[in-house]
């Protein structure tokens, strides 16, 4: 009989995340996968500025904090020094697709053997809800109070589709954590992204459609539904490169 319990590498500490925020779910998935693959002792995580900057408070592994947007460069530095360690980044959409887009694209183009976990919550969570590069058209944020208008603010950036045009990456996928079924799929895909690095010495990125009920001004339940329904229209779930 299997008992549902906390993965050992997830510290016994209450998440600082808001109620209904799915950062916690993704942390748990990452913890489960690392434990299952028995790589805890040779994994180094990189968490840049964003709501998950304190990920090291929860994940009981070696970690480096990175400045806003630079996690792929920091991870590159680590991986080049320690090629036999497993190195992953855990980045928000503002981090990965706005301020850090250059590092994102070039790290992927180099095919740097890293696992990039990309939390797309269509908003800047940590700074109280400004427009992100992934904010949906029409979506209201602190800095698009009338809704994102393509004529003024341009279009959401589809990171997976874009990176899939590069030759460097081995695996590019988008998943959601908006329902139980989606979470099970996310777990499978995330595991594959770690496997690519470990077994094939290859670059993998997984975009996770994630909630920010606080800054979306939604109830947790509605936020989950919003990813499954609204977000997936702009950001379809799937494998873009394999």
């Amino acid at each position, binding site marked *: 009989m299997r008992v549902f319990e906390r993965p050992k590498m997830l510290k016994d500490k209450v998440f600082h995340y808001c109620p209904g925020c799915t950062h916690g779910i993704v942390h748990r998935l990452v913890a489960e996968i690392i434990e299952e693959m028995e790589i805890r002792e040779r994994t180094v995580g990189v968490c840049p500025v964003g709501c998950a900057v304190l990920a*090291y408070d929860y994940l009981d592994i*070696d*970690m480096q904090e*990175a*400045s806003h*947007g*630079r996690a792929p460069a920091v991870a*590159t530095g680590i991986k080049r020094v320690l090629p036999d360690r497993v190195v992953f980044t855990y980045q928000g959409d503002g981090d990965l697709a706005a301020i850090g887009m*250059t590092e994102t694209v070039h790290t992927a183009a180099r095919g740097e053997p890293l696992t990039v976990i990309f939390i797309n919550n269509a908003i800047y969570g940590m700074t109280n809800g400004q427009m992100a590069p992934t904010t949906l058209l029409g979506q209201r944020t602190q800095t698009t109070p009338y809704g994102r208008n393509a004529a003024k603010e341009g279009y959401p950036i589809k990171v997976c589709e874009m990176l899939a045009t590069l030759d460097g990456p081995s695996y590019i996928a988008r998943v959601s954590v908006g329902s139980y079924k989606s979470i099970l799929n996310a777990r499978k895909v995330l595991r594959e992204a770690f496997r690519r690095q470990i077994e094939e010495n290859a670059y993998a990125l997984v975009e996770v459609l994630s909630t920010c009920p606080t800054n979306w001004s939604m109830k947790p339940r509605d936020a989950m539904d919003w990813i499954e329904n609204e977000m997936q229209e702009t950001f379809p779930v799937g494998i873009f490169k394999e």
Partner: protein
Amino acid sequence: MKKKQVLMKGNEAMAEGAIMAGCRYFFGYPITPQNEVPAHMAVSMPRAGGVFIQAESELAAINMVYGAAGAGARVMTSSSSPGISLKQEGISYLVGAELPCVIANIMRGGPGLGGIQPSQSDYYQAVKGGGHGDYRLIVLAPNSVQEMADLTMLAFDLADIYRNPVMILGDGNLGQMMEPVSFCKFRKRKLPPKDWATTGTAGRSRNIVKSLYLIPEQLEAHNRKLYRKFQTMKRCEVRFEEDIPEGCELLLTAFGTTARICRDVVDKLRQRGHKAGLFRPITLFPFPEERIKEVSSWVKAVMTVEMNMGQMVDDVRLAVEGRCPVHFYGRTGGVVPSVEEIVHEAGKILRGIKK
């Protein structure tokens, strides 16, 4: 036995010195006048079993340095003025997270895109901060191709000892000129193990590399700890070179390229019967303020010469504290002052003293 000498550019000597000091990771982005550094690293790093990456920007380069330093490696980046400006956020993070590394700035004229000729106008940026927060770098100022190599080797040890970035502050002239240089075998000091590095938790509890402290009292305590390191640097790492005659009438103070020029100036002035002296800070931080203070009580006047509009002269004045007049002469924008023009300026000051 005579040591073998080779003819090299300053930039190449610096790169070679780094490799000899055990640096195996170099991350950089092209910019004149330091391109010989990455060029040399691209050839020599793979041969030494190391890694060279041409990063996509200076931001990426300095953050690759951060990752590699956090993983426990000896690592270096180099750039020139505009690129160093771009690295400032990363440098602040490196100090905050207490990561050792070596950063070279082969200065060119500014502000903005400026020019590509040599300058010393990033003195403030290097010595006073540059990035955000209350921090210092150890700043070493070579004045020859030989010192480009020697001080780079020293820089790696100092970085490890203090767990702090060390900057080599050169300029386009030092980087580009060729001189004979000899490499002594690098003797690595006994340094504490890097047991703080993020290498995986095998056999120990986990390590975190970070600079975030959300509780003000904790951040203050962290700042105090850093401050204590900077104070130790001030006590233990001051380096300078001086040639000050008894009864010195005019003491020239200069670093790097201008110190070389001032050497000739001093010789010329002495030939003309003046008691001229030279003081050359080798560490710009920590600044040799104590020594300048001492000599300023008996030299008649000080003249600081720089390739900028007057930056180091502020630190000289702070050290002199009005004990004697401090004059300044500078050329900037890539103009290198000639021996003759400095002698001329010095002559004016000396005539004033003798009146």
